[in-house]
């Protein structure tokens, strides 16, 4: 899966989790989205894990700095399944 593929699939998940529509781009960060606080983050990650059938390792999501890096991490976890 390319980064773009992952982001496209992420978009559908974000649409379900957030009340206000968010248009995802690789350079976007949580700070750009008012609703994306540390709390919604938890439910977002659970939804992402379920949708991609992956499991992140402890602490690794917080090392990603933007949506692009997050998508790369997802792609990596898909590969190492």
């Amino acid at each position, binding site marked *: 899966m390319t980064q773009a593929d992952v982001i496209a699939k992420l978009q559908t998940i974000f649409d*379900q989790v957030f*009340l206000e529509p968010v248009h995802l781009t690789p350079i976007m960060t949580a700070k750009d989205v008012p609703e994306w606080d540390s709390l919604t983050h*938890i*439910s977002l990650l659970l939804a992402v894990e*379920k949708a991609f059938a992956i499991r992140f*390792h402890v602490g690794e999501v917080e090392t990603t700095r933007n949506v692009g890096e997050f998508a790369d991490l997802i792609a990596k976890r898909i590969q190492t399944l």
Partner: protein
Amino acid sequence: MGDVEIKALLLNGNPEFWDRLAILTRQAGDFDEMFQLSNLRKKALARQVPRPGPVPKKIRLALMGGYSFYPFRELLEHVGDMEGLPYELWCGDYDNYISEIMDEASGLYAFGPQAVLLMPSEQRCKYPGKLTDPREMQQAEARRVVDSILELVRKVHDKSQAEVMVTNFMLPARHDLGAYRDRTLGSDWAFRKWVNLELGLNAPSFLHLCDLEFLAYRAGGLNARDERAWFESKQPCSAALLPALAREVVHLMAGLRRASKKVLVLDLDNTLWGGVVADDGIEGIEIGDTSPRGEAFKAFQKYAASLKERGILLAVASKNDQAKAEEVFQKHPEMVLRLDDFVSFKANWEPKSENIRQMATELNLGLDSFVFVDDNPAEIEIVRQFVPEVETILLGPDPADYVGQLQDCRLFEPRNITSEDIERTHLYRSETQRKALAATMTDMDAYWESLAMEGEISAFTPIDVPRLAQLINRSNQFNLTTRRRSEADLVALMRDPAYSCFSFRLKDRFGDHGLISIVIAKKTEAVLSIDTWLMSCRVLKRQVEDEVLNELVRLARQQGCMKLEGIYLPTAKNEMVRDFYARMGFVLTHEDECGKKYDLSVPAFQPIPTKIKISHRSHDPG
């Protein structure tokens, strides 16, 4: 799930959205599904999708403990709202619960919670010493953990009068010590089990245990835990267990406020035995230990019998010939249930909905006290359509699962078991005999006289509190104001000098009815206002109301009141007492859509003569 369909309802602002959302919420299996439904709910609120029905008042619920409450609070808020018990939530800080409870200036008390869910930290439920320490030391430490939790519970209850729910501890699900875990209380496994037992067995009546150990066991220990979720965001359990936990909390809260079911109505053919007695004959039906199917049906009868032991009334509604159906109970040697286990036995060709209606009338119980069980979907459907107040259980295809289905229905869970629960079957049977006697007497006075009734009037006492709360939260029909109160509320009333509260017990030559009427009155200057007046319908037309009024006037005089004020607040169920105050000689003073107010002049009142012999029980200390 009908994802597309419900989103369309939301976008169109269709009020049916809410019903659909409630149904999907009940069906939701995993965290993700429920979380998304809770998001839809928030979207619908933001869009102001019109919602049918009255808006229930929010209950102020405080969540506190050694965990982070997001996203749990979202699920809890959602399930509560969907079940008609919406919450206003306050969440304590992560692992700050001890100081939040001990510090009377904390945000917890400023919030003024009506209920508290306390989730004590698992980190503090650990034996600090060695596995090989003497058992007495380990037990003492477990007791210390329990005492520290109970102390917090008492403190928060005393300071806020809130009902308190406490979660116990999940057990570990890793092999760790191997079988040695059971040979010492020093292992997490044995220590937490011991703490959970001590906590449950020593819980005061205002503490409602939220059995996390059980929920985790039911879900499977490995599924219930998630170490990563703990390291990353201090979650109390895995996301997979959160929906079950949210449902459990809402279930507990509902149990404090709603009446439980009183009558289990059973079908016969293919419910209590296998086969159809009219076709297969009494020898042909499957019941008893001679075949696996027979054993399954027998187990189901045994379970129904155990519900009866717990105070649930049993009844039969069957499409059968009455004599043929009764014959099975009289003659079949393998039957567990016998005719005298049932308070009503209706085997005929009338619709079952009609039979249940008749039972409700005969037993003086509301239809919403009934649960109907049948293996036939058509019978279930008739009852659902024609008496929607009755809860129904459609038995599945395999009799092996019947017991489990009933055990999981959650409609017959005891709260505080009172001895009167156990007596209830006996009471209702005597009621039937009493009716037979009334039918033979033409003169009511002679009938009352013959009953040899004795009434006992008592101020509220601590020992009566569980029974008082039970009746206050259960009775619907003869209830002038239908104000519900928790045990904590009642204790507060007992301490308030402005209130006069009393209960009424009645017995007669057929049996002891127990505590059957409750009055709460508040004095404001020279008026004694009747905040609550309710009575069990079992004792209708027995002159109890007259004696209660006599007592109210006596109390009013004692306190120098000139007027007694009566209030009637209509509900869907208390039509029976709409003109009660007028019948009792009160004068209507005010009426609007909310209800009616009445006055009775105290000086002009003449005590009403009755056939009940009254005794007073003073404020005995329980």
